[in-house]
């Protein structure tokens, strides 16, 4: 039971707003020591896992391109483009992006879009511009930007599991095989389709309601 102290530390650390890197390290330390792992072995295990998961950090390599283009007016152009389109709304824009993200993720193309590559330079400024135009407010619409980021996540999560070679499908196959249950990846991926449709409908309805809320009174 003592090994659960790490979970308590994580929750308490986030609630008390300590630096999350520090909280994670202390949690790992408490958990490892409670399980009787020596400090040096613990540090080595932590270091090995850190090294093995470097792929999540490589996405920041797109920032020099995005930064350079922003310096030369990329976001402003994205806003102007939206302002010139009649009948264009934040809800319709994000609904189109949701569909694009779900379909490409279902085809295994998960890195084609993302927060650094497409949301920051293109989708969020367009969403903000559309929302400002709809509501007539001058101020930056952070809610629309947050919705753009949320739409990216939802499209990715509930599209990618339809693709048979994605990490979660392979993990499920591997774990089940450990219990003597052999399943083809295809049989796992088809059962992701009902949830994918539900995610599109639920989030789509929310986007349409978001539109209605942004409309000028």
């Amino acid at each position, binding site marked *: 039971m003592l090994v659960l102290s790490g979970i308590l530390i994580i929750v308490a650390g986030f609630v008390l707003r300590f*630096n999350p890197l520090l909280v994670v390290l202390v949690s790992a330390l408490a958990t490892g020591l409670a*399980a009787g792992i020596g400090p040096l072995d613990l540090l080595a295990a932590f*270091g090995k896992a850190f090294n093995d998961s470097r792929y999540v950090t490589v996405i920041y390599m797109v920032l020099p*391109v995005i930064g350079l283009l922003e310096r030369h*007016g990329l976001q*402003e152009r994205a806003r*102007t483009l939206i302002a010139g389109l009649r009948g264009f709304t934040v809800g319709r824009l994000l609904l189109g992006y949701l569909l694009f993200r779900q379909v490409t993720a279902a085809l295994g*193309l998960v890195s084609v879009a993302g927060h650094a590559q497409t949301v920051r330079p293109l989708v969020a400024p367009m969403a903000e511009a559309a929302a400002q135009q709809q509501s007539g407010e001058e101020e930056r619409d952070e809610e629309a930007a947050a919705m753009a980021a949320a739409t990216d996540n939802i499209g990715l999560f509930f599209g990618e599991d339809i693709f048979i070679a994605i990490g979660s499908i392979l993990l499920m196959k591997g774990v089940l095989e450990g219990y003597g249950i052999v399943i083809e990846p295809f049989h796992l991926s088809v059962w992701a389709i009902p949830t994918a449709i539900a995610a599109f409908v639920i989030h789509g309805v929310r986007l349409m309601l978001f539109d209605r809320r942004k409309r000028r009174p």
Partner: protein
Amino acid sequence: MIGLNLVYPFAGLIFLAFAGSALRDRSHGRRIGNALFYALIALSLLAGDRLGDLGNGVLVLGLVAIAGFGLMGRGDAATTSPAERAAEAAARRNRLFLPALAIPATALAGTLAFKQMPALVDPKQATLVALTLGVTIALAIGYAWLRPRAMTPFDEGRRLMDGVGWAAALPQMLASLGAVFALAGVGDVVGGLMGRLIPEGSLFGAVLAYAIGMALFTIVMGNAFAAFPVMIAAVGIPVLIHGAGGNPAIVAAIGMLAGFCGTLMTPMAANFNLVPAALLDLRDRHGVIRAQIPTALPLLAVNIGLLYWLAFR
């Protein structure tokens, strides 16, 4: 064969450039802290495999020390004013989108093409290799067309990187915490507790415990991948599959998706929820999570229903 052996050094050199850019920025109040942090990430990307496990552990201690002592911050990096940007946007028009779209377009075309040449490019890493190629092409277009100074793209990139700050290392830290949890057997203890909570003989109760357990454990761990082996062992296999005769493919697939609903609601899934809030300069760093909860909760309910009605025919 081309694979991560190309991607990691490329990303490492970009972080090294971020470190150099931070160090040169005399207007930046915490330039040393930021420069050190980016230099350590560069070291990890460039030489992580040669540092050894303990060496990587020490590197992590360095990152945590810099972030934990509050040595990082944002500078007022020199960039163009809103008026200059508006003028450039008006002059350059939609051509500005071309380099930005070159990245996803190359990532897409490259992934499809590289999968056809498994001898040249590691098929497992085709997307990351294609992404690296896309960034190289976009950067080349940017230099040729906009004619910036050599360091300008990296100064501008570092301006965005400063917005993300220490959060950049959080996803890797959480993955490592997951490894320690697995080593310490946390999952087995949680699974045992969950197993005892299920009301005897109630199929719907077991479905609820399994799906909500997936979401809750994902909220704590930030990753459905960590929750899945625990919940399938505690409830999925013994109660739903062996006990109630559930279809294993449906129990597994929909259980994982119930976990993804948890991912949408937790700051522990930093790269999906905290990093974008930082990248988009949101004042509310939980703004993305707040935007996701009203989708995540009904979707979790749908998953519970799907599991109950589809898996036990």
